[in-house]
Every structure is written in C-alpha cells, then in structure tokens.
C-alpha cells in the first residue's frame, strides 16, 4: 500500500476558459473523437454589469474520489482504484453497461462510441509517476492547475492547498465521494455560489 495520494488543485480564479487543457488531454492520451476526459464549462453570466456580474470557468474531469460511487456500481470491476487513489478503467474488462456513467455525480465519464468502452481522465498517472505534471497542468496557460501527492505536506500541490484553504472546495460534498480534485473558488464572480455554500 502506497502512502501517496494523488490529487489536483484547480484555481478557478486563474482559469480563463482557453480549453488548452482539454486539447492537451486529447493529445497526450490519444482521446477519440466525441470523447472528452476534460471539459471546460462557462458558468454564467448572471447578474448585472458592472458590479453584480458573475461568471467563471469550470474545468471538469474525473475527481478521482476517495470513495468513488463508480467503483461500487461497476459489475465487472473494470473500474478500480490504484494504491495512490487514482481511479482507472480496465478496458479489457468493461462491457459498456454505462452504470458508472449514471452513478458518477461529476459528469466525468464518456462512452467511447467507437470502442464501446467507458473512458475518463487518468490523471496522467504515467507522468505523475515520473515526477511530471499531467499534461493539462503542464500546458495550462495561467498555471491554474497543480497535481501531485496530497499526502505529502511538502509537495507543491499540498502547499498550494494549504495556502488557499479558505477558498478550497470539493464539489457536492454531500454525496460523500470525497473528491481528490479540489477547486479554489474565485475571489470574485461567484458570489451566489459562495453564498450557497456558506463562504
């Protein structure tokens, strides 16, 4: 059992919605047409210009939950978790029942229409193991993403998280999935969201 616990911190204050991460992901992992392991949504705009306008970009991917609902529902054990906490799909076992797609609350999974297998972000674990950042983080034009070992307090990702603990947010904590992708809420432009979660 490894002591490492891979995760990612994404600073929504820095994301400009350029989609470079989504393109980089497709290149690095050879992601098929019509399949997305990484998407960037625009949230808003709502409110009135100039002072009450709210809008931000939200990069979405597999949250590599500590307690993933996709693993529980998968009848074939194609979905599994590595010792480092990364949730992966064994393509040789998946039979495309799609229950994992239904059970994931984070819209992270896609059925590949060509291979008929469910796919998702792998946190570029092959790069992390070499001490490199996932290509989405490496490519990000604003440096809004940092990945690494959340179990090591000295790691860059843990330090970024510690410095911004007041803005740290795990999406839909009420489901109990405990995502390993932590978002840092925007300082401005997401007042309604912050109010709804008591920030």
């Amino acid at each position, binding site marked *: 059992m490894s002591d490492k616990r891979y995760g990612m911190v994404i600073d929504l204050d820095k994301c400009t919605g350029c989609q470079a991460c989504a393109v980089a992901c497709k290149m690095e992992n050879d992601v098929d047409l019509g399949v997305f392991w990484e998407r960037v949504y625009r949230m808003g705009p*709502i409110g009135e210009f100039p002072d009450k306008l709210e809008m931000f970009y939200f990069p979405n991917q597999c949250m590599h939950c500590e307690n993933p609902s996709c693993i529980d529902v998968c009848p074939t054990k194609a979905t599994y978790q590595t010792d480092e906490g990364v949730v992966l799909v064994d393509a040789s076992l998946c039979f495309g029942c799609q229950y994992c797609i239904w059970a994931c609350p984070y*819209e992270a999974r896609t059925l590949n229409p060509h291979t008929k297998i469910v796919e998702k972000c792998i946190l570029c674990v092959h790069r992390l193991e070499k001490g490199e950042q996932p290509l989405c983080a490496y490519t990000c034009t604003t440096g809004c993403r940092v990945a690494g070992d959340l179990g090591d307090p000295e790691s860059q990702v843990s330090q970024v998280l510690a410095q911004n603990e007041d803005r740290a947010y795990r999406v839909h904590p009420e489901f109990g999935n405990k995502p390993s992708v932590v978002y840092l809420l925007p300082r401005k432009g997401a007042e309604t969201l912050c109010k709804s979660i008591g920030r």
Partner: protein
Amino acid sequence: MQIHWPLIVSTTCQRVGLGLFICAFLGFVCVGSPVGLSVVAWITLVLLAVGGVASVFHLQRPKRFFNAFKNPKSHLTQEAIVTPFLGAALLACGLDGVLYDLGEASLLAGAVAAALAAAFLVCTGLAYQMGSRPAWNTPFVLVLFLLTALSAGTIGVVVLWLVSVGLVPVVFVWAAVASTAVCVACQIAYVARMRSVGYGVNVEATKEPYRPYFIAWVVMGAAVPLTMLLSLFIIPLAPVISCVIAWLSCACGIAAWTMLFFRGAHKVKMFPMYPVDLNLDM
C-alpha cells in the same frame, strides 16, 4: 436522461413475469389458487428470457457478459448471481408434473423460486437508486419496482384463475384492485416528488418532454387496469377479456412509467444557480 429501450423491455418483462410467479405462489399457498405453478413458471421463464435478451442489447460489449459476476457489491452483479439460481428454480417448478412429480417438495421449490424472484426484483430496484440522479435518490425506486410487480402479478393471477376455472374469488379481484391502487398512489407521490428534487433538475411530468410518457402511464398504468377490474363488479360480461385487457394495459403502463422514470432522471448540476454553456445531460 435518454430512454434506454433495452432496459425498458427487460425491466418490464422482469416485473410482469416475476410478479406473476410470486403472486401465483402466494395465491396457491394462502387461498388455494387452482392456477398451476408449473404453467406460471413457464410464462415467467419466457418473460425472463425476453428481458434477458433485451438487456444484452443494452451492453456495448455483450461478448464480455460473464464479467458481470465480478463485483458482489454491485447490485448488477447480485442480479447476475441470482439469475441462474432463479432460472433453475423456475425450471424445476415448470418441469414438476411434466417430467417428474416433486410431491410435497413442490411447495418448497415454489417457495425458493418466489424468494429468488423477490431477491431479483430487490437487486434491480436497488441498482436504480442513485445519489447522482436526484429523481432516483429515494427508497421510492425500490418500493415502486416491487409494487409494479405486485400489481401486474395480482392481475395476472386473476386472468389465469379465470382461464383455469372460469370463476375467481371476489377477494382476489379486490386484491388486484388494491395493489394497483396502492401502486398508482406511490407513482403519483414519486411524480410529485420529482417536481422538487433540487440540484437544478426538477421535473414537471405534465409538461414537455415528459408529457407523452406521463399520459401513457396515466391511461395504461392506472385508468384502464382499474376500470377493467372494477367493471367486473358492474358489468360482469366477458370477464376474461376484461382481465386480459387490464393485464396487458398494466404491462404497457409499467413500460410507460419506466420511460418517464428514465426521462426524469437528470444528473445533478454542478452549480445549478448558473447557466452552463455545454449540454450536461447524457
């Protein structure tokens, strides 16, 4: 959420078939129903086979079907594990009196098959109870899977009872009316709950795009079966035809209900307070 047609067919056949067997067994044990369990077992096996074939069409890689037994925590694996035992128990009941005579053990075989049928329905109901789909995040889902099976099962037994001996006890017709009425009441409660599930995915079943399924369910799942069953007390002409119509309509009502069930099962929105520029519904 999209309607997954193979699952509509398979879950409808399962509920109609398994509900019929459970109710026939209970009727046999409790009130000495003349409906032969071996005949019911064959009907159930045929319906299960149709449902099983349909569910294979849902799988994108059906050749890997046997991987389905790997995760006992998954309700789908539990369903897959129950299936061969259920099939064997139903086959044992079906062949009883044809190839061999189980004698007093017939009751035991029937009880085992009925228990496995109930277990199968519970596994299916639990498989659809999902936190990520607010409309499905309720014990109503399991209750409705069982109640729809009970409703179709009791009506089916009334039909077979009438076909067997031409008469059916009034109490059993009332049981069919009561189970259908309770089922419809729970379905109404489920539809009412869908209006306020939160997460930006509230569903008004009476409006588009849900309206056609809602109307189909009201007509076929509630109005026709109840009217046909109650008509037996008012105009007892051609009771077999009335009951067959009620049974078929009930089965179609379950299918229509399941379509509404799928259509209303939207995924939670990340941040419902904001409009999103990509379609999140899959």
